């Protein structure tokens, strides 16, 4: 096609990395990653529905170091996507477009989702997750 030879508009490679683009890309990445987390959630529910043996083997998988790593990555992704999603909803309502408030809300998303993840980790390992 002739269209292939046309010059393309400036793309990611030409821009200096900045918080707004990093956060936007990460919003999509965490969204896709959370879809895989939903798969794990359905597996957990199916295992619980199947009976104690299936549930026990699911718990072994989730308790492994890889399982824990995945779990906490989904936990952070969820809090990040949640906080940044709320930020997006404010933008949709026409609020917070000034550069200054964009930076403030952006850093707040990092701090709040990081803190929520940290608190969740501390709580689960302190209280043994209800076991």
């Amino acid at each position, binding site marked *: 096609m002739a269209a292939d030879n046309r010059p393309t508009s400036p793309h990611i490679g030409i821009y200096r990395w900045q918080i707004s683009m990093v956060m936007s890309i990460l919003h999509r990445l965490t969204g896709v990653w*959370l879809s895989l987390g939903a798969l794990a959630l359905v597996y957990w529910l199916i295992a619980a529905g199947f009976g104690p043996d299936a549930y026990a083997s699911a718990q072994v998988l989730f308790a492994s170091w890889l399982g824990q790593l995945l779990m906490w990555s989904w936990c952070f992704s969820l*809090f990040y996507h949640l906080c940044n999603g709320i930020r997006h909803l404010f933008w949709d309502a026409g609020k917070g477009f000034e550069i200054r408030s964009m930076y403030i809300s952006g850093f707040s998303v990092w701090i709040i989702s990081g803190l929520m993840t940290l608190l969740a980790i501390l709580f689960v390992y302190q209280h043994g997750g209800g076991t």
Partner: protein
Amino acid sequence: MNFRTPLGRARGLGSARCGTDHWLAQRISALALIPLVLWFTASMMFYMRADYVSVLNWLHSPINAVLLVLMLTALFYHAYLGLQMVLEDYIHNEWVKVSALLSVRFACISLAAAGIFSVLRIAFGG
């Protein structure tokens, strides 16, 4: 040889006229997910590593079962809308795009059905 007029060729290739609906549906499902996800993560803090009996007891409560069914519905709907956008943005081959969109759609609906069935099975079962 193609005898169709330029207008005939262009018709139906423009806006699908459902962009606003998609945008709104994504926001509304996001709004619904805020309280549901907060409730779910708070519950998971307690039940993530819990034994079989306490998880069953948790799912036997009608409130928890209904909230979980609502969350799974909103979650997979929201996930499909988001994944659809990502696929439409980055896949340019029409056939690959359509197959990917259909696969993701079927996967989301199947997973939602399987998850909801499991919750109801536990909620109604012994």
